[in-house]
């Protein structure tokens, strides 16, 4: 078996596409004007920023005036949550609803607000990885300022019932924000049809560069300024615009949303083959619902082994993957997402996440399915936990 290089961690980040890079390049050395300048070089930069804004808006069904560029998805999340919290506190509303398995950009922001006099309700998620909209309905109070639920989970890929949650929020007149960093470009999003009030997205997950994101804020919702200074981003976020990154995001999101169904039709069967192949190993389980998940995502727990070792072994075989193991996070606890769906610590430690795109071919799938069982066998052969499992002894 010839060694291959396979990037199967697109949920972590993606390569900048040639198309995006080519669109960005002139903005470094030729079209380098400051968009606030009056002369043509500056006006051109302003025009290119607004073109990109239109593309981002169009990709999610928003109006360009509702799009604010940020430096990343986390910034968009922080701004949305802390901004609404600040504004609504003036009306005596200091309660926020989120879920237990959000990205840390949302969770840690909520925890920060808890330390500053806000109350946060963390709704649970089901064993197959979904927020129950009725839990949101039941959690909403008179003083609820914001509901924030991720569009698709970054680890297990489950796509949340966003429209239903948005509908409940509208009924109850509560602002609804969604972190759609993992969803944009992989599922059809239309903020108007779906009733989404605010949405965070990130460029580097869809083949733009790292360091660019955007926040959609529905017309009628006002946010406090994030950065005070110049008049950029409609006076809300000062700082000279990162024109190349913004232009790149425009091209990237246009490309990523052009034919989502077509892409998914290629990726899904390959992803399913990976799921079925890896699940042939004994003592494995798929985390998250099989169907209502991102097309390229799979997350499987492999008992008896530890995730970081698995990733290192896969890396030695040219495969880039990810795990919810504690060891990969630098803390003692494994993934909060896997614990939230009810996995035991020792099972969560041995999880494998692959996130593939169209460039992972059928031959690559064959290769992964050859490598994974070998690596798992090797790690299990040296695992005292596996030894006990095979003897039917408890290892807890």
């Amino acid at each position, binding site marked *: 078996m010839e060694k291959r290089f396979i990037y199967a961690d697109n949920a972590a980040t993606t390569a900048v596409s040639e198309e995006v890079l080519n669109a960005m390049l002139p903005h470094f050395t030729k079209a380098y004007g400051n968009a606030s300048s009056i002369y043509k070089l500056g006006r051109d930069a302003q025009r290119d920023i607004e073109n990109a804004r239109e593309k981002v808006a169009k990709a999610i069904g928003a109006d360009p005036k509702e799009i604010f560029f940020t430096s990343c998805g986390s910034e968009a999340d922080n701004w949305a949550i802390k901004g609404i919290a600040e504004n609504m506190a003036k009306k005596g509303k200091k309660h926020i609803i989120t879920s237990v398995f959000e990205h840390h950009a949302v969770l840690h922001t909520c925890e920060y607000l808890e330390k500053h006099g806000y109350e946060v309700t963390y709704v649970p998620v089901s064993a197959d990885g979904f927020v129950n909209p009725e839990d949101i309905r039941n959690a909403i109070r008179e003083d609820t300022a914001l509901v924030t639920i991720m569009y698709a989970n970054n680890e297990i890929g489950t796509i949340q019932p966003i429209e239903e949650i948005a509908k409940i929020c509208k009924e109850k007149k509560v602002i609804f924000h969604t972190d759609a960093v993992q969803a944009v470009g992989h599922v059809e999003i239309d903020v108007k049809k779906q009733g989404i009030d605010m949405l965070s997205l990130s460029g580097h997950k869809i083949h733009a560069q790292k360091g660019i994101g955007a926040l959609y804020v529905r017309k009628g919702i006002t946010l406090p300024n994030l950065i005070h200074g110049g008049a950029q981003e409609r006076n809300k976020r000062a700082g000279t615009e990162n024109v190349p990154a913004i232009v790149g995001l425009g091209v990237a999101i246009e490309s990523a949303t052009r034919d989502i169904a077509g892409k998914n039709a290629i990726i899904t069967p390959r992803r399913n083959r990976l799921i079925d192949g890896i699940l042939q190993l004994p003592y494995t389980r798929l985390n998250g619902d099989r169907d209502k998940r991102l097309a390229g995502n799979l997350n499987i727990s492999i008992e*008896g*082994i*530890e*995730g*970081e*070792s698995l990733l*290192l*072994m896969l890396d*030695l075989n040219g495969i880039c993957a990810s795990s919810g*193991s*504690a*060891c990969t996070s*630098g803390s*003692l606890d*494994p993934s909060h997402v896997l614990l939230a769906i009810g996995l*035991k*610590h*020792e099972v969560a*430690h041995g999880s494998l996440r692959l996130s593939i795109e169209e460039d992972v071919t059928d031959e690559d799938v064959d290769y992964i399915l050859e490598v994974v069982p070998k690596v798992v066998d090797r790690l299990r052969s*040296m*695992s*005292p*936990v*596996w*030894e006990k499992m095979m003897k039917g002894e408890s*290892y*807890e």
Partner: protein
Amino acid sequence: MMYSEKVLDHFSNPRNVGEIENADGVGEIGNAKCGDIMKMYLKIDNNIITDAKFKTFGCGAAVATSSMATELIKGKSIDDALKLTNDAVVEALDGLPAVKIHCSVLAEQAVRSALSDYYTKQGIDPLPIVGEIKMPEE
């Protein structure tokens, strides 16, 4: 997180993996909940550790520190093995990331746990000789 070449070498080609049948001392440390378990087997003749093997469930550093610890005690006297510190394991591996230092402590304790078992099997109270085995915190 950066692993040294030596850690990666001991992870990808671990020395002394396996079990020793009828081992003179067997020690196990850690728990699966925390994500690390080391099991160590020793063969001891005339106070000399003639063979050492291990099985480890854990991260790259857990495997590498187990491997290095067995290398450092093989052929040594029990007295020398009792002097093995986690710092010595870390140094022999050209360092470990700060969040992985606990793995080297596990390796040190796994050796002590196996020696403790050896004395127990000999009918000797291990506590005065080996001291208390530190179990990792959950």
